[in-house]
């Protein structure tokens, strides 16, 4: 296979990998807890991009059957004409999961802020050490 074609043919995948790496890096390397959550969001969105990419067909349209109000049974449906709906459904679920996790993470962060007054990991650990010493 031609290298250029190989790269172009999977361009979506390469980009999703880059996005995933960005998100993953933010999750494990950023010292700010909110940035971790941002990274989490990017990570999950990247995975959604990946799934959507698997569903796409060249030259296909959105998966809503046309002529729906006409005589559907007699009308032959050309599968190649419509995009694959299954990954879309899965990703709807994934988006919901994403926003739920996001909400929960933000709620936790508000509690963190109540306790420590900051989102910086190093500052939190300093506070913890001070608390430890007080004991």
């Amino acid at each position: 296979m031609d290298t250029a074609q190989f790269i172009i043919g999977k361009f979506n995948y390469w980009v999703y990998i880059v996005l995933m790496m960005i998100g993953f890096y933010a999750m494990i390397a950023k010292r700010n807890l909110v940035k971790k959550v941002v990274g989490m969001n990017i990570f999950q969105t990247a995975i959604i991009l990946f799934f959507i990419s698997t569903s796409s067909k060249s030259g296909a349209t959105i998966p809503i059957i046309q002529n729906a109000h006409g005589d559907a049974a007699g009308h032959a449906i050309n599968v190649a004409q419509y995009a694959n709906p299954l990954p879309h459904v899965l990703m709807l679920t994934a988006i919901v999961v994403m926003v739920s996790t996001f909400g929960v993470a933000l709620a936790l962060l508000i509690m963190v802020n109540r306790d420590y007054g900051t989102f910086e990991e190093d500052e939190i650990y300093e506070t913890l050490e001070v608390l430890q010493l007080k004991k």
Partner: protein
Amino acid sequence: MITQSPALLIIVPLIAALLCLLMGLIRRGVCYPFVVATLGMCVIFSFDIMGTVLREGVIRYRLGGWEPPWGIEYLIDHLNAFIAIIVSSVSFIVAIFSKKSIEQELHESKIIYFYTIFLLLITGLLGITISGDIFNIYVFLEIASLAGYALIAIGRDRAVLASFEYVVMGTIGACFYLLGVGYLYSVTGSLNIMDLTTLLPNLYQSKVILIAFAFFMVGIAIKIALFPLHVWLPDAYTYAPSTVSALVAATMTKVGAYVMIRIMFTLFQPYFSIELIPTTTILGWVAAAAMIFGGIQAIAQTDFKRTLCYILIAEIGYIVLGVSVANRSGFTGAVLHIMNDAVMMACLFFIAGAIFYKTGLRYIYEFKNLHRKMPVTITCLVIAALSVVGVPPTCGFFSKWYLVLGAIDARQWFFAFLLLASSLMVAVVFFKMVQTIFFAPAPAMEAAHAHSGTSHHNEEHKHSRDEAPASMMVPIFVMVAGILLLGIFSGQIISAIIQYTVPEGF
């Protein structure tokens, strides 16, 4: 007539969670009995499922009536049904235990939410357990995880921070799992486990499959806190409320271990995960490291629950080791250990909860002479400890027996030795604890001696007995009875259930 128990097993706790919230807004007091009753029903359903499986073989329940590759199905064989029984029974007992402990550790206005989330967590776990669709497992994994994050976050001290760490790690784990699903989907186009089982063998040479497998494994390893990826667990489980620690320690990691087994040996054939790629070798060494690391860390801890957490990490190592030796004895040991460990960990965390409830003590060095105050609890602690160490009549011995036999059958002498060495480390942990409890002179007593010279005898009457209330003691007794009975009847359990769970070719 298809049994409807599989569907009811999930929707009963789910609907109960919704109703619990609604009823709780009207009257707070009804939540607790309602939750207990619901989980009691779950226990009945899970036993019914087990009965059906034993009578009629594998259950394939079509949700929505759509045939499998298109719709979602429940796929229940002996392994699932067994895990479902463990999860539902343990959570039932935890629910009984929860009343007093939660009333003490939580503000009363939060109790209804607590019980709602408690039921949702169990819904999630049971959903993972009986699902036959890899994406559906992800969805329920997220329900369980979200509920788990919240339940851990309502603990004390650093609970919120620990919970946040858990959110980050848990999301990475879940996302890796989802990536695995995606990779499998992109080359097979299917999500159904049975369908994939027939599709995958033709694709074993594909790199996509290999990476999918790797991501599945890493994702689940994070969820079950396998050794190098365990960092979130000790903090999270230590600072969670006692009830929650007992529940999550006993069930969540076990369900994760189940998913790992399911992926390694049902989704992928043993041929793939053992011979084609050296998963079992890697897992074996990782598990061995987990056992040793868990043991060493457990010795070094002073917080009781934290000690238990590290022991839990070691126990997960046992289960994974049993899976990784890949033979009949080892696998039997792993499945048996899933059950035993659930019972033992629940029991130990119950005891930690009871002690905390009654005395507010958390550190082991504060437990001096606790046996005078809470003799029954301490007796139960000793029995549970013996089981974790693996002393014969208790259940812990028998799973270790099969694990070691499995290691020896696989010619892994080193692993067999490490299993025993890790037991010894756990023995040291509990030995230190028992020594502190029984043989450390209380400071008050020493002082009394120095001044008045009264005999020990008179001192004994100063410690009045003060046990935890019955709603906490009964679950502890049930678990202790379980530890003893499951040990004695482990042979029957193996011949009735576990032997069917062993994958073909072992």
